[in-house]
């Protein structure tokens, strides 16, 4: 799956998009987004959604943020 690049969006638009996608996802679905930095402000909002997440460097200055709906 190609991660969706959200780097040219102004905060908190990426947050809205990710939370919306998480809400729409079914258990077992995985999502991936390219972000300019680790999304610290998003984490407190993701926690109640029942997800597992991890990140890796994108290689061009950003990070790829992976989310799995539990």
């Amino acid at each position, binding site marked *: 799956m190609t991660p969706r690049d959200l*780097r*040219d969006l*102004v*905060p*908190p*638009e990426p947050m*809205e998009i990710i*939370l*919306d996608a998480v*809400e*729409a996802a079914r258990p077992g679905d995985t999502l991936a987004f390219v972000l*300019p930095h680790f999304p*610290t*402000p998003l*984490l*407190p*909002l993701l926690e109640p959604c029942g997800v597992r997440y991890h990140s890796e460097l994108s290689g061009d200055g950003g990070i790829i943020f992976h989310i799995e709906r539990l």
Partner: protein
Amino acid sequence: MQPVLAYDQAPPFTLPARFFLAMPVWLACSGLVCLAWGSQAEAGRFSPVVLALTHLLALGVLGNVMAGAVLQILAVVAGAGYRHPGRLGLAVFWPLQLGVGALAGAFLTGFSALLFRLALACLVWGLGLLALVLTRGLLNSPARDATSRALAFAAVGLLCTVLFGGTMAAVFGWALPLPMTGLLELHMLAAALGWLLMLVAGVAVTVVPMFMLTPAYPASFMRVFSPALALAALLGALAVVAGWPRLAALPAIGAAAGFALLTLGRLQASRRPADPARRFWLTGMLALLLAQLTLAVGLCLAEAAPLWALATGWLWLAGFGCAAAFGMLYKITPFLAWLHLKALHPPRGALPSMHGFIDASAQARGWQVYLFWLASGLLWCAWPATAPLLGMATLALAGVLGHAHGRALWRYYRLRQAFLAAPDYPPS
């Protein structure tokens, strides 16, 4: 250390919202003062109408936005929750409003001693409490990032501003034999450098790269800017005490121009050139730079015309301070509305996006009216007879800002009522 984000510590929306809504009311009041007495500014920067307008802008407009934003930021970014947010809001809000009205009234009624005493009591209480809450919250917070450090310095700057300003109000209120010129220089130095520039710079290092999609500020700047600004303010204060008031401005000019140039460089490299918030910040930084120029010209001229001092004050307050405050408020109000509604776990699709609260066209319109207001103010500095134009522009800006933020808050209120009244609320 990175800032700690604790949305569960966020105070109710009513805490910052009441301050944000008070802002256009005081802006409208300054417009009315300008219409009624603005042409009397010919007497210079110490004429009663200029002093009243300065404090309406500094305390009523900027003070309210800053107080609301600081109380919100402190709770969420520094993780410093409030035990009684409702009581805290009232204890800062009403004294601040009453104090602003009393102070402006004191200037406009020929330096009424009674109104100065009332203003002193209210503002020392309201702003002193705000500074203490800010200091206490930051001391207890684990956050040690550049913004939190600058907020701590800004709290000291606010306390000094209140101390020197309050002493002057006491001089007028009780006819105390104290040196007004020195107090005035120290008050302006603490307010402009220690409070306004420190707070805006502290916020800028986080929000400019984040919201305007610019390169980050250099790491060395992030480490040193807040102690360097504090040092510049201290050097300026020492120059005032030593009897060299002209030298006092030099550290301020250097610090402000350096920050403006660095921020302009970031903004030029923004990946969102059409963002209205970027336009506000660009305007603000150009105004800050221009303010240093007018200040320097005023200092160089032996018999400086009132124009230079008036223009410096206008560019600092209306140009730099208000541009940053209005630009960020267009981001803060929709985000807080969205965040508080999100916490209610609304049904999917029921919560509008941030643009649903204040859209980009409303922000762009706000910037255009703001620019007209700023230009009208500069015209007024040169020709005080144009005060009616500035008064009308001020009323128009108050209307545009009040409409945008009031509409967003009304939408928030309606949606909140709808979510709470839904039969399946609270969701399991």
